[in-house]
């Protein structure tokens, strides 16, 4: 038998010993038992994250729950330009604009609600915002609730959503 006729390990004709299955079965069992023994002896090296106790660290660019940025006086930076709600592919941002008492600022959001159940966390609102008012840098990914209403978050909630994950 010439070298060119030799069967490729993952295609073509199987050799006699491969067709008996058994040597390959034992080889596979050898590989799996190696994993078992290694994992038994090195339980701490297991890549599993013990989730409620441990958290996986995400990149700072991870898009978590939204927050609204504040001015120095604590009012929202948002000028209710509707860029974000227009850009939103899931149509989950609902803004009602109001006239701002300060003549230098045209508008401000009277309400700024986000339906977190509709949100697809794409980040387009962040990119669309002309005054860096909405950000998704909180790193919060544990978004859970028992009713649908809990996911319909208001301006006040979003203003107090801090990037370190704490809620004030």
């Amino acid at each position: 038998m010439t070298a060119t006729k030799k069967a490729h390990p993952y295609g073509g004709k199987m050799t006699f010993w491969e067709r008996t299955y058994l040597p390959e079965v034992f080889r596979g069992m050898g590989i799996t038992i190696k994993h078992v023994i290694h994992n038994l002896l090195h339980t701490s090296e297991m890549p599993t994250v013990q989730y409620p106790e441990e958290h996986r660290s995400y990149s700072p660019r991870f898009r978590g729950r939204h927050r609204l940025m504040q001015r120095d006086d604590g009012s929202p930076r948002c000028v209710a330009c509707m860029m974000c709600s227009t850009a939103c592919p899931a149509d989950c941002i609902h803004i009602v604009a109001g006239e701002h008492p300060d003549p230098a600022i045209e508008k401000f959001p009277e309400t700024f609600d986000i339906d977190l159940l509709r949100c697809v966390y794409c980040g387009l609102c962040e990119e669309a915002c002309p005054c860096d008012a909405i950000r998704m840098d909180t790193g919060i990914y544990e978004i859970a609730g028992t009713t649908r209403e809990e996911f319909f978050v208001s301006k006040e909630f979003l203003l107090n959503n801090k990037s370190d994950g704490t809620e004030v």
Partner: protein
Amino acid sequence: MELVVSSLLKIAFLLTVILGLVPVLIWAERKGSAFIQDRTGPNRASVLGIRLGGLVHPIADVMKLLFKEDFRPENAHRFLYALAPFLVFFIALLTYAVIPFGDFIRIGGVEYQLVVADLNVGILYVLAIASLGTYGVVMGGWASNNKYAFLGAVRSTSQMISYEISMGLSIIGLMLIFSSLRLTDIVAGQGGAIWNWGFAMQPLGAILFIVAVFAETNRNPFDLPEGESELVSGYHLEYSSMKFALFFMAEYTNMVIGAALITTLFFGGWNIPWLTRSVIEGHAGTILPVHLVIQAVVMGLISLLFFRRAARERDKFGDARDREPGFMGVVTALMALGAAGSFALKPWAIGVDAASIYATLLQVGAFVGKVVFFCWVFIWVRWTLPRFRYDQLMGLGWKVMLPLALANVVLTAIWLAIV
């Protein structure tokens, strides 16, 4: 009357071992598969913080299944649908009647054979009951009135028929060598050196039998009746609650039978290589102390490991689970102390009756140990190999295993005629 009492005791022992092994095997399946795939596996359910590496999970599973709705699909065959899981489990348990788990136990001068029914057609009984096992699967699959379940049932039937033949033929060589159908004779014939075991005498027969047993128990790589990737979950698709649990338990019971059969027929049954009963009884004064010392040392080392872990991970979770390593350390330390403390009873001067019982216990322990090992092999193979394609399965059964089994019979007969 005495026969009834001793039989009931033997049945109780077997049931305890088998039904006790089932949750352990479910745990081993989950934990073993996890370790093979570099995961941690079950480790959450706990009783007072004691998790036993996830061994509490089967109990939680049973509680969950007990309180689930017992669902019956519309247009299912009412009687057969209810009967199928019971039949599967019942037939799975029947086989144990003929499997010897020790040779005899001498109590008060009377020798009790450690097998429930020592039939003179023991092997055939095993094959007959195994062939009935498919009915539960077929009924469950057909009575559910579901296409996937039905396909699972059809696959199960054809697979069982195909592999039963090679299974029966593969042990004919063994019957020829031991010239008996009685399982106790076959086990007794495998005593002494390790090359007396069936595996050494009938290597081809042993391989064929093990493969056929895998097929008969519907375990991977032959789990096409379940085939969750193509049949959702096959014949028990529509079952829920304890009916599903019965199917599930029957699968593991079948696995224990398979392991017990492989052990009994090809791996010496309750025999310990070279340590025959007469050797154990004659040297019980040496073997028992050595055994106790080994047990004390091993248990002591394990308890040291637990205590080291307890010291290291004192505040790992911040709840009751932190107490677990310490608790396990105390338990294992007590076991080590028990083994060491039994030296006060002078094990080197063991009496004749006690030596006999000790030999029996060692043999039963050897049997259970071998069965547990082969159960692990079932799990091990399942998480190593992919599933067969259906035509490959049939090709292997009819075109490879059947001719090989026939050749094995002929070769054994010729060899026996010459020697």
